[in-house]
């Protein structure tokens, strides 16, 4: 009899889901502790996050430009900027083709003359209808993007209208 009972208890135990849904909060899990029902908490106004000082310093200090920085810049530009500014910086990205207001041409005289700090500022805080990208693009990556934009401005001559590079789609959108 005890043996049967023991087996029954074992069988019941196997159905408990305690370990599957543990009483801990993971990223993005729902939580009943706070009013908004989420475990992720917004920043408290006026606090300085860990690493903020280093990030602020990195904004002031341009890294040395080398091939690796440019490659990083090209990748980040493809992810975050090309949808609107286009792969060549003319402001003819896929999203603009779908009706988003066209951004100014990077190859214009005004933006060629603009200092690197202006680009840094626009990435971090946005500009007109363009939203800020500071939360998703770290300071070092911002410098990398600026370096890549400078490279685009230098390379201009080769990428004229009708050049295949202008029809290319940002990373992965090939089909």
């Amino acid at each position: 009899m005890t043996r049967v009972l023991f087996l029954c208890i074992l069988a019941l135990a196997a159905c408990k889901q305690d370990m599957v849904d543990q009483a801990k909060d993971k990223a993005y899990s729902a939580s009943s502790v706070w009013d908004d029902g989420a475990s992720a908490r917004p920043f408290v106004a006026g606090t300085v996050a860990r690493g903020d000082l280093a990030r602020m310093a990195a904004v002031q200090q341009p890294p040395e430009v080398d091939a690796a920085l440019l490659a990083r810049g090209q990748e980040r530009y493809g992810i975050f900027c090309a949808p609107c500014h286009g792969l060549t910086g003319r402001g003819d990205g896929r999203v603009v083709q779908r009706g988003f207001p066209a951004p100014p041409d990077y190859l214009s005289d005004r933006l060629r003359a603009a200092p690197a700090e202006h680009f840094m500022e626009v990435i971090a805080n946005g500009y007109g209808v363009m939203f800020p990208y500071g939360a998703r693009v770290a300071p070092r990556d911002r410098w990398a993007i600026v370096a890549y934009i400078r490279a685009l401005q230098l390379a201009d001559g080769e990428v004229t209208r009708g050049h295949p590079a202008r029809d290319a789609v940002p990373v992965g959108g090939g089909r």
Partner: protein
Amino acid sequence: MAQIFHARANTIIRICLALLLIVPAGTVAAWMVVMRSDYVTGRNETVTQPVMFSHRHHTAEIGIDCRYCHSSVEDSAFAGIPPTETCMTCHSQLFTEADMLAPVRQSWVSGTRLNWNRVHDLPDYVYFNHSVHLAGGVACTTCHGAVGEMRLTRQVAPLTMEWCLSCHRAPGKNLSPRATLYDPFPTEGKSAEEGHALLAEYGIDTSGLTDCSACHR
């Protein structure tokens, strides 16, 4: 004296003996089939979301990179679900009248979250990490399928331990070149040699990948 066992007793005993074997084996087999079924693993199910978000539209058709929205996927365990602000970078200007996007605008104006429901959900006793897999050359589509085809997001892999292990035992053939890691469509099959080359390129040490403590920590 009357017979204790009548003529059919032998047959009945044989059937009983056979059933003694077949029933437990059948139960185990049926259980294994059920546990691997789509019903239990949640494979191919779509989930009701606050907004009918289409990956097909945003990735394959418009060409937005995964990392525009899932921005922490390369350097943290979690891929990250985009906040309302990310949608608004485009939808503050595009489709501003669409009913489909009303919840997004409402969330933006009021500052309340959009509550996206999970599509994939591993048990809490399993440790998973996105960044290690991307650094190791496993493409999004190897685990998540052809996201670029999905109008509604669904889970393609069963997410069973068997599935994780089938790759961890021999990851080579499941790796992709760096340039294609974030493509919305899987690349075509690779040869064994290419797999070996990729293993070496990414510098993967396969010795600890099937240790229990890799995933249960």
